[in-house]
């Protein structure tokens, strides 16, 4: 059963559009429907943001917050810290790579699932499992699998001729491991969304392309991509946000190590506020800077999305 592909208001003759608009005019969306959202935004958005700003501009420790106005001292302290500046770069890199990997893997999985035909079924449910596993358990399992001495995968490394392979022992390796593990955990969400979108491609389009003798890749580009692209882009945006906020995984698998190589910005904020020191003011300053960074990256992603949609 195909869902209608055209949006309600596009392509309608002018007369119908006018009547529709007139009909809508009499039935505005009532304001009070937005109240739950506004309350939610106040509690989870504005209030923490205002508090964060207050903490960032004052001498605040976990023991005694808001001790006195200090202007931008906390921002300076954040800039001077060993790990923070680099952590912003690491967060951005992590988000981009993990998103790319999750999107590619999820899309490939969805395509493979669709090509195999049949229902989503048990196989599909198995593919969903990583998304459902708590990050703490994921972290412990991977850490023990990858341990260089006595880890679960040492047999595999020996068989492949790379015995002693220790990805978690080097900075780059640990970073890559975290990227892969995060993508492993979130690819199922992408797979789910893309698969659902693929179901919306009418069967006739597949058949027509096959009749025309189009190869698999060609079919993909001209038939599937236009339909699925918006979904893939939207999934990518959500993945970007989730990847910027990654924290449990880093804390359990590498605790930011070795050295500072996997200290991403959210983990650095956590260290500053609750672990290494109790400097909440500096942590709040770091959060503000991180929020700005995420905003910039999302803005860029939004531009790309609008640009692509404009072309399609």
């Amino acid at each position, binding site marked *: 059963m195909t869902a209608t592909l055209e949006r309600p208001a596009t392509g309608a003759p002018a007369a119908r559009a006018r009547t529709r608009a007139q*009909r809508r005019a009499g039935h505005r969306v009532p304001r009070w*429907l937005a109240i*739950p959202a506004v309350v939610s935004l106040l509690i989870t958005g504005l209030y*923490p943001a205002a508090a964060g700003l207050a903490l960032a501009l004052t001498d605040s420790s976990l023991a005694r917050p808001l001790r006195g106005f200090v202007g931008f001292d906390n921002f300076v302290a954040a800039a001077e810290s060993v790990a923070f500046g680099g952590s912003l770069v690491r967060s951005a890199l992590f988000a981009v790579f993990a998103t790319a990997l999750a999107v590619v893997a999820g899309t490939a999985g969805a395509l493979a699932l669709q090509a195999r035909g049949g229902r989503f079924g048990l196989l599909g449910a198995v593919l969903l499992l990583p998304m*459902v596993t708590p990050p703490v358990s994921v972290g*412990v399992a991977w850490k023990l699998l990858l341990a260089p001495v006595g880890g679960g995968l040492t047999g595999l490394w020996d068989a492949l001729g790379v015995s002693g392979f220790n990805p978690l022992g080097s900075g780059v390796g640990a970073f890559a491991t975290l990227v892969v593990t995060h993508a492993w955990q979130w690819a199922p969400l992408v797979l789910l969304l893309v698969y659902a979108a693929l179901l919306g491609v009418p069967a006739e389009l597949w058949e027509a392309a096959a009749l025309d003798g189009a190869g698999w890749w060609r079919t993909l580009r001209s038939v599937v991509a236009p339909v699925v692209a918006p979904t893939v882009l939207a999934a990518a945006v959500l993945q970007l946000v989730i990847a910027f906020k990654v924290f449990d995984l880093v804390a*359990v698998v590498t605790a930011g190590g070795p050295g500072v190589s996997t200290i991403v910005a959210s983990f650095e904020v956590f260290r500053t*506020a609750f672990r290494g020191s109790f400097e909440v003011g500096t942590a709040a300053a770091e959060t503000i800077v991180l929020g700005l960074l995420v*905003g910039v990256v999302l803005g860029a992603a939004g531009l790309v999305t609008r640009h692509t949609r404009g072309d399609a």
Partner: protein
Amino acid sequence: MRAAASRAVLAVAALLAIAPVVFLVSLSLRGVDDVQNGGWLPERVRWDNWPAAFQTVPLAQMLANSWVVALGATLLTALVAVPTAYVTARAGRSGKRLHSALLAAYCAPPIVAVLPLYFLLKSVGLTNSVVGLALVNGLANVPVAVWLLDGFVRRVPAEVEEAAWVDGLSVAAGLRRVVLPLIVPGLVAASLVCFFLAYNEFLFAVSFAQSPSAQTLTVGLSLFQGDRTVQFGQQAAASLVAIVPVYVLAVLAQRALVGGLSQGAVR
């Protein structure tokens, strides 16, 4: 040929998806000295990790807490997200602004936000309670649910709504009686995703719950990490206690999940 290639890809993917959990099962049957034996199978199978895990941390209580928090949070998210998605989908420019505001609120990691939220919960007496946790998780996941539901509401044909208005229903009543039944599949899917998010959430759980009466499984799992000689076998057993019920839920709901999402491509 294509079918064979895709089967191969799927087989590898399924293997990768399940490998760590299979390893956890193997770990749960090993003693501390056996944990790093370099293989997938225990050298000596031991069953005592399972009962021991329940002794080391109050696992049964935490399991109950996790489910209560996740269910409560999902309910709250659904209650807030449905009218909100209607606004973002149907209210033109202001709807889009609301959508952007929600996404913006979801952007920053909530680490420092823990402090003001802690004070807020304390001022209404909801620290160290599953109700407080459900509240915070429920509100925190609203942007995700709205993001997922927005597309579904847009898919509801305008004619259907207009027919209801012609019949004399107000917009809000139309939402409840006409639009809502049409987006139920999407709502189920979004609710399931939010359930998983709330169930696996760690930061809020560890910050707002101090005693076993309110602590969830993610906190319990971290307690194993907090010991100097980590009982990996017990931790693996506890992980499986956390994972298996949710897996069962995911498997049972997979049809609703896919069906729901397929009825409205997310834009």
